[in-house]
């Protein structure tokens, strides 16, 4: 092979994509700083991280593979109930709950993936919605297991690593959630910067071309669907464990729609968009919705309409455009 010695080596444009950059490190440093800066809002912080992980799992499907799902809450809910039931049954060790939740959600994800690969368009939307509604109904019917409308009670968590008990101020919850979310984020990050991740983007960009370059598209979709479900399950488990409660709401259509909105708000296909979208959405909702829930609904709807029409890349997309604009001005000088 001819050694490439030119500067601005094009090969590096592909090889270097996965490198950790300064803004990323700053982001995670900030999440640690939050622990010290906002000691009264750590429960909210934990929920933001959990929702961010949930949105991250959806980004793998929507942002990277180009699939639309209105039913991602199915996996979130399965994970939440799995972890909750395990704790309720007496085994309150947190990490086992996560593992069980991931496994359960992955199984459901794998099963649904076989349905998903056979449909497109509105049929896919309906099937994703249908699976979630079915699970919701099932959870409702099996109220003697799930607690039904009253929710799952008696979810008591043992201390994390045997040392850090879950406290009322959410301090353990926040650091626990942060650790888990960061680990899951690194997993997702590794995934999207791998050859597999590149093939997902290929599926998103042109599904017709994929078989023509020798790519088994259906198998890839099944794999990413299962992985995405597992991550969503972990997020659901975190919710169950940090709030020590699971309600039917975790399987609701509202949750599926909400996570999709959050992802668009932050920007798809960028991983960080999911986290930033979750932060903005949840903090925003906390501030605005308590004042007047109607107005929140209206402004949320309006924002959605405007984002789709004018700011398709969401917050991160807007930032990228801004940066590009600034760079162009700088180069022009």
């Amino acid at each position, binding site marked *: 092979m001819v050694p490439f010695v030119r500067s601005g080596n094009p090969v590096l444009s592909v090889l270097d994509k996965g490198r950790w950059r300064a803004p990323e490190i700053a982001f995670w440093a900030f999440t640690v700083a939050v622990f010290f800066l906002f000691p009264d809002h750590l429960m909210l912080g934990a929920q933001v991280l959990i929702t961010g992980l949930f949105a991250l799992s959806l980004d793998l499907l*929507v942002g990277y593979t180009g699939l*639309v799902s*209105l039913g991602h809450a199915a996996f979130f809910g399965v994970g939440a109930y799995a972890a909750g039931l395990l704790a309720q049954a007496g085994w309150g060790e947190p990490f086992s709950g996560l593992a069980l939740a991931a496994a359960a959600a992955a199984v459901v994800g794998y099963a649904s993936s076989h*349905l998903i690969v*056979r*449909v*497109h*368009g*509105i*049929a896919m*939307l*309906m*099937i994703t*919605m*249908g*699976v979630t*509604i*079915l699970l919701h*109904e*099932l959870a*409702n*019917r099996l109220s003697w297991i799930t607690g039904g409308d009253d929710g799952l009670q008696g979810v008591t968590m043992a201390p994390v690593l045997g040392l850090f008990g879950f406290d009322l101020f959410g301090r353990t919850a926040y650091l626990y959630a942060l650790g888990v979310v960061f680990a899951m984020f690194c997993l997702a990050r590794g995934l999207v910067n791998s050859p597999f991740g590149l093939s997902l983007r290929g599926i998103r960009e042109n599904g017709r071309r994929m078989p023509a370059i020798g790519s088994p598209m259906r198998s890839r979709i099944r794999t990413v669907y299962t992985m995405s479900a597992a991550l969503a399950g972990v997020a659901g488990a975190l919710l169950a464990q940090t709030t020590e409660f699971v309600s039917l709401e975790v399987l609701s*259509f509202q949750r599926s*729609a909400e996570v*999709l*909105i959050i992802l*668009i708000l932050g920007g798809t296909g960028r991983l960080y968009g999911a986290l930033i979208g979750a932060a903005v959405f949840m903090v925003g909702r906390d501030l605005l919705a308590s004042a007047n829930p*109607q*107005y929140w*609904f*209206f402004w*949320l*709807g*309006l*924002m*959605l*309409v405007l*984002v*789709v*029409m004018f700011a*398709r890349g969401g917050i991160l997309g807007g930032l990228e455009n801004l940066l590009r604009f600034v760079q162009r001005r700088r180069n022009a000088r």
Partner: protein
Amino acid sequence: MFESVLGVLFNGVAYGVLLFLMAGGLSVTMGMMGFVNLAHGAFAMLGGYLAVTLMGVAGWPFLVTLPAAFAATAAVSVVAERTLYRRLYRAGELDQVLFTIGLVFMSVAGATFVWGPSQQPVQMPPYLSGQVSLFGFEASAYRLFLIVVSGIVTAALVFGLEHTRFGAQVRAAVDNRRMAYGLGIDVNFVFTATFAVGSGLAGLGGALGINLIGLDPAFPIKNMVYFLLVVSVGGLGSIKGTLVAALLLGICDTAGKYYVPEAGAFTLYAVMVGVLLWRPAGLFGRR
């Protein structure tokens, strides 16, 4: 026993035709433009609230509010289509889903603001209340009225589609939009007109349905799943498909609630998933 079967069937058909009225337009416009419109329920809601306002504030008789609901909703839909929807025909599914969800949220908030969050009470005129003796069982007069009205509308729709030039253009545009355009059909006009009729019918359905399924600001969200269910099972672009699917859904739902209330909505969605796997394009869909 027989009376109850007939009764369940009758009620199921009444619910089914109401669903058809509301979802039929959605099927045709989705089939024609491939546009996922989750805000269709908002038009139905608008028709309902209009009827309520006209009756309550202006004192109009119920029957007169019906064509008014149709016309006004159709007019509003034309404005919405021209200003908003048109920009998104080329956008992907995800964009259309999110955009129309945004519209739904705005309409729900708007309705709550103007009319309040509770169910709208309506007084049906006396000749539409009460029971009618039909084939040996007591049928609700209102449901009978619903079936009759829907029957007339369906007949008009089918006649329009099959025997008028405009109807032929609609069928052509649903079948192959690009080809229709190439043949000189003004597809934009056909679409706007179809969208208007479809939304107008939804508004009519919303007005007619207050007495049956109620009306509150959460209407578009609560019923959207049913519309999508009917449309996807029936097949996009097919009036016949939507009618069959709506009747099926109406009867199954009513029968289910009557005979097997523990199953809830479970069977309905299980059947939907099953049908879509067997026929992803719906029972009467294309491709």
